[in-house]
């Protein structure tokens, strides 16, 4: 049986869910008070990898660039994907990198993992940076075919190809679901709407088996974990971190309020009589014939 070697790249992110996120008085994120978690898109990428485990008995590794405490999200992602190996790329000099500097480091890190890789998964985007650029840039630097917004995929192990469906949104036009076929290796950024399904009885059995294995492994995740710094990775310091980042944040400001587009009539929300009048206005607005 041909094997499949799968990697997931994940990211430690602030937890933006209501109640967990904390903002400074000026509206910026209060990083010290906000809990960090495995990013939701990263978690979905890990489930996409788990699908490969269940369906193709793939070998799975997970890599992340982050601070030392990012090991906990590797544990979390292992719990989801039943990963065989975990890699944390951690060094002070990686900090502050923009997407190009991050992609360069991830490329270097992935080269240190047990390859060659057949499929690399990433999330759609990170919840904090929100650029969605690191995945495709890492793919490009690795020379992998990039497939973005993937909602479904199947692998043909014999012919070493992948078939993937991905969604394309064209604003002002329509949405398209495109089905593509590409030779391995590929880099897949998973769409937020991805839902793995397991149809056959044998898949469901495999699912349970690997899920149990994942729990056992995640309890002892440190024995699967390798932590590598810049020197161990052999990363070129000129190409990573701040030095390898073309972009900088120049300033952050409040978006000034624009000119008022309309002059609103303010209504007291506790007066039923007033609201009755509002409703009359709404009904009038709805009945007006407008010739455009």
């Amino acid at each position, binding site marked *: 049986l041909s094997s499949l070697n799968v990697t997931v790249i994940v990211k430690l992110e602030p937890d933006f869910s209501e109640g967990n996120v904390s903002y400074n008085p000026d509206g910026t994120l209060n990083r010290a008070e906000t809990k960090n978690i495995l990013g939701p898109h990263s978690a979905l990428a890990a489930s996409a990898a788990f699908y490969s485990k269940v369906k193709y008995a793939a070998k799975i590794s997970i890599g992340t660039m982050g601070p030392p405490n990012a090991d906990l999200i590797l544990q979390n992602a292992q719990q989801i994907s039943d990963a065989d190996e975990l890699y944390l790329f951690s060094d002070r000099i990686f900090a502050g990198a923009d997407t190009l500097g991050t992609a360069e480091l991830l490329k270097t890190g992935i080269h240190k993992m047990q390859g060659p890789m057949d499929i690399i998964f990433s999330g759609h985007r990170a919840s904090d940076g929100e650029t969605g650029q690191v995945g495709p840039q890492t793919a490009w630097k690795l020379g992998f075919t990039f497939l973005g917004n993937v909602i479904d995929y199947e692998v043909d192990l014999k012919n070493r190809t992948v078939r993937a469906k991905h969604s394309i949104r064209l604003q002002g036009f329509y949405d398209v679901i495109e089905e593509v076929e590409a030779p391995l290796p590929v880099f897949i950024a998973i769409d937020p709407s991805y839902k793995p399904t397991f149809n056959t009885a044998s898949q469901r059995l495999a699912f349970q088996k690997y899920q149990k294995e994942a729990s056992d492994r995640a309890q002892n995740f440190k024995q699967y974990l390798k932590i590598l710094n810049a020197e161990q990775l052999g990363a070129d310091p000129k190409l990573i971190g701040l030095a390898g980042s073309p972009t900088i*944040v120049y300033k952050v400001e409040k978006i000034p309020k624009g000119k008022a587009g309309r002059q609103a009539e303010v209504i007291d929300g506790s007066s039923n009589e007033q609201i009755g009048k509002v409703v009359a206005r709404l009904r009038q607005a709805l009945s007006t014939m407008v010739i455009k």
Partner: protein
Amino acid sequence: MTDGDYRHLYVVMEQEEGKLVPVSLEMLSEARRLMDDFNKKYSSNEKVVALLLGDGVKEISKVLIEHGADVVIVSDNQELRYVRNTIYTKLIAQIATDKEVAAKVESVDSASFKKPRYMFFAADSVGRHLSSTVMAELDSGLASDINKLVVEDLQLTHQIKTAGKPLTYEKTLEMYRPDFSGFLWTTILCLDNRNPSIERDYHPQACSIIPGVFEPIESDSKRSGKIIEYLPQFEEKDLLVKILDRKIIKNEIDFDARRTIVGFGRGIKDAPEQNVKLIEQLASELEAEIGVSLPLSKKIISINQSIDSKYFIADRVIGSSGRKVSPKLYIAVGISGAIQHLAGMKDSEFILAINPDEYSPIKDECDIFIKGRMEDVIPMLIENLKTQKKVVQA
């Protein structure tokens, strides 16, 4: 570097089956405005260059000139009918670094041409990935989701970029990016490393632009420009990526079919489940479709699986990162009015906002502002809608 190394503003067009996607002309128009200023301030030789790739697209070149392009570089080939990342990326990078093409764009100053000075892409599901891979290939910086652009000479002191010394960066593109809340702007710059120990050029200065933000300029058939045809060459292995099938999806949430849309935002958070129920009742009374603000689609509030997957999804987002709507009546419930949301609904004919905070920006974009909590206001609205309907029927 000399000033001849990096020239012009290249804009990557998007088209579907030979028709321009709206964001293409929006980007081009903003490029024109920016370059008009640039031409006055610095040099009249630098141009707006539109890159157009596709199959059977040559005819659109003229439209691009009428909308602000000085030069159109068109690559027309059946392999380019749909965007495949690898061949598109390679081709765009080839065109952008081609000296012969640069000599056709502009006869003077092209000898030392290396790369474009600036580059624009669309921040949509095609351009977002394409911009990333093209900039990885061109080895320069990329800012995403931009809604304002300025070119300035900036004096900067930066620990890494200038080794802590004050230096002037001429013709620097300030790229403004609204953050996830929609209330903060981050300005991103793409700067060469002038620090002697890590010296490196980073050009083009590139960004992806949010669709629906910039107004397209009026078409002017008297504008003239140059059309350059570029013959693409493909590597056989890159053509192994095949498009097997393409299905056009009609969105299930059809805002255009409704006369009324009720949009809700973070303001539901005090009692999310009850509030969503109230909003559903209000919408059903008005036969309205329901939309949400961008933050909700990120599942910052969770109610239960069935409500979350029905409402807190990208398809329902109204705004510059979602759908643009213009119904007869728009009701904004618990929406403070971030600029991205306003961009998606401000063309509605009549706008009602329900919000306890009179200072929220939505007040400046609505016709009636009901100051109050949705928990109190919506039931009264529903009651009045019911009674007034009865009056008419009687």
